[in-house]
């Protein structure tokens, strides 16, 4: 399933091609097969020279030297999402599969491309670039030492910060940045801002110091007046999917603080960036219940520091996650890692707010955590006076064993 999601998000293509599901069974045939299998098939047929160059790489770390150029920049015509459904059409399939190769090759071998295609090199400063025919923004991040948390892996806040950064850079690179917050020029004129209402994150593996992650992000419509932004985070070297996230945004008037419909002028600005694809994370539609004082774990007196505030002196969304985890029970934090998170944002808070973080553990016996596999917790972040800031649900799974030694290595040879 994940693979399907991955490839479909990889080609989150145009709304024009209708997905009249021709051959539903074929959906699984092409996309979820491992790409390795495809490549060898291709090469043996010798279908085209460019594809031929690919196979020797998959097995390892070979440098690509084949002049595979043209395909990379214009994959769009050949791979509407429905290519999956058009399996009987072999020429379409082959064209599409070639595109998969090239996209995967680009994915895995980015650094090895020869300098004569400098724009294809990983951008050295991690500024990011638009790919996929203008619809997806991609940026790489090298995990810095101060982004590593007590678990010796990148913290969930680091990951969320990266997501926020790519979202802003996407809007900026697309020329739509009216202010520093993702408001388009038309929105600024009308005093409208985006506010996040919902966020879902699933982490399959946390990166560690020195890893490089590649974040892809794109937007879609969410209902008539909302926007959904999805992210897919991969290991830049291996292409392994590390994290998937999906968020829902609505428009609010920043002066009246009332929600607003998307005005026509704004719709004109952003509509053609919307991609018609399924959410990259399966929607968790279970109702998030509000905790009350009977929650087992409560931490009070949390307050924002100067460093937590953005230019408007509001607390950055990502900080809420840190506060939510402040009341997570220590035994869970020690033996488990955060695997999934669903958050509903209700209200914002500012410099002088004092917050309380509540956690309730469902299903598992805290005393017996060693034996529990998956544990789920419910969370509430609220102000002293009870006003709700964020509601959440988190899923935890036992930590993988190798985390503990991952950093205790001395470089085997100096450069």
């Amino acid at each position: 399933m994940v693979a399907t999601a991955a490839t479909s998000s990889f080609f989150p293509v145009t709304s024009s091609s209708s997905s009249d599901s021709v051959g539903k069974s074929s959906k699984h045939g092409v996309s979820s097969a491992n790409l390795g299998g495809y490549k060898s098939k291709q090469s043996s047929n010798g279908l085209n020279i460019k594809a031929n160059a690919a196979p020797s790489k998959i097995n390892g770390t070979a440098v690509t030297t084949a002049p595979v150029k043209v395909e990379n920049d214009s994959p769009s015509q050949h791979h509407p999402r429905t290519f999956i459904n058009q399996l009987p059409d072999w020429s379409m399939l082959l064209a599409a599969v070639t595109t998969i190769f090239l996209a995967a090759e680009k994915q895995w071998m980015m650094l090895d491309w020869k300098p004569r295609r400098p724009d294809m090199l990983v951008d050295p400063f991690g500024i990011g670039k638009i790919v996929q025919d203008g619809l997806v923004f991609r940026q790489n991040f090298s995990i810095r030492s101060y982004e590593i948390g007590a678990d010796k892996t990148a913290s969930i806040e680091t990951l969320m910060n990266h997501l926020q950064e790519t979202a802003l850079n996407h809007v900026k690179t697309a020329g739509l940045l009216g202010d520093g917050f993702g408001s388009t020029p038309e929105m600024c004129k009308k005093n409208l801002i985006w506010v996040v209402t919902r966020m879902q994150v699933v982490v399959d593996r946390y990166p560690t110091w020195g890893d490089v992650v590649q974040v892809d992000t794109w937007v879609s419509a969410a209902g008539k007046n909302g926007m959904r932004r999805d992210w897919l985070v991969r290991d830049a070297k291996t292409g392994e999917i590390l994290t998937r996230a999906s968020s829902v945004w609505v428009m609010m008037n920043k002066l009246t603080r009332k929600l607003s419909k998307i005005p026509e002028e704004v719709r004109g600005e952003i509509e053609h960036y919307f991609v018609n694809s399924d959410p990259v994370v399966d929607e968790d539609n279970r109702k998030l219940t509000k905790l009350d004082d009977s929650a087992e774990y409560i931490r009070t007196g949390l307050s924002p520091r100067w460093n937590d505030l953005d230019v408007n002196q509001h607390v950055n969304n990502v900080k809420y996650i840190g506060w939510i985890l402040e009341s997570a029970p220590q035994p869970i934090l020690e033996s488990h890692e955060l695997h999934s998170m669903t958050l509903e944002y209700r209200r914002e808070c500012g410099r002088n707010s004092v917050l309380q973080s509540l956690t309730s553990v469902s299903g598992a016996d805290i005393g017996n955590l060693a034996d529990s596999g998956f544990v789920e917790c419910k969370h509430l972040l609220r102000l002293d006076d009870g006003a709700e800031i964020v509601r959440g649900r988190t899923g935890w799974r036992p930590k993988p064993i190798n985390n503990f030694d991952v950093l205790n290595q001395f470089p085997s040879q100096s450069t």
Partner: protein
Amino acid sequence: MLKLPCNGVDRVHLMSQCGFMGRPTSFFTGRSSVKGFRSTKAYPVQAVASAKDGAVVNRVEADIGSLANRLRLGSLSEDGLSYKEKFIVRSYEVGINKTATVETVANLLQEVGCNHAQIVGFSTDGFATTTTMRKYHLIWVTARMHIEVYKYPAWSDVVEIETWCQAEGRAGTRRDFIIKDYATNEVIGRATSKWVMMNEDTRRLQKVSDDVRDEFLVYCPRELRLAIPEENSNCLKKIPKLGDPAHNSRLGLMPRRSDLDMNQHVNNVAYIGWVPESMPQEIIDSYELQSITLDYRRECQQNDIVDSLTSVEALEGAEVVPELKSTNGSGKAMDDKQERQQFLHLLRLSNEGLEINRGRTEWRKKAAR
């Protein structure tokens, strides 16, 4: 019987004769041995054979080392005595002034220090220890940190930080930094830090022994090189303990889980965040931090509660007017129109009042926008 050749060029021939078209990575595991030899470019054997007389064909792109090492925008200088790295400022590292916060700067300094240590072969467990240090269970701890920023970078600016380390007397080492705006090559900040060795089991300080000193001195400039050469600079001045009662305070600060570094200690940078917590709002609104100096005395654990205290410090030649130290602890500093202000700080453990660190900050009036 094929005799295995020993030198690199012959090895290349050997492989191509076997019809091996891909990259001969496995042969060239020692990176240093690879330099100067190039692999074939997916072309038939003949092309390689012609390289026999030493004309190299292509470079072996040995893919040893993590992607980050190759992407790492940092490298040792020509003489190997300092290390430079570039960083881009990310949106979430920018604060209320639309510019990077001093914590961001401190984080980047920490990162470049760690990367320098790693690239010269010190441990990568976060402690940057030499082999001898590990033998004796010794680790480096920060004793003093001084950061000056002349111009804060904004979102998506690229800064280049150069760092080097040197011995400092018998007891410690110092690590200096110069921060430049990569686009303009202008120096936008400087920093210096002093480190001492501590036994990680007994938590007692220890002098730098000669064998440890020799291990790292190799990487240090021979002549004294100071990032901040000025003699009367604040980076050297003693920091007195501020008077009781302090002009301003913020009590009951708690370390968060995100303040812990990979060694489960409260990271140095968290302290830099606590210091301005007790600054009066008026100063934060109209001034920006020009420099911060911290003397680290004691560590703070995750479960400790911290008080942050601030008092105005008279600048040379001026005096603090007593009546302004007053009302409801707002500690309104001398005169808002002043170009510069200076403050003394104290972070202490709440319950017993033990000092965690002492600090001094200088502030300059923000440019009108």
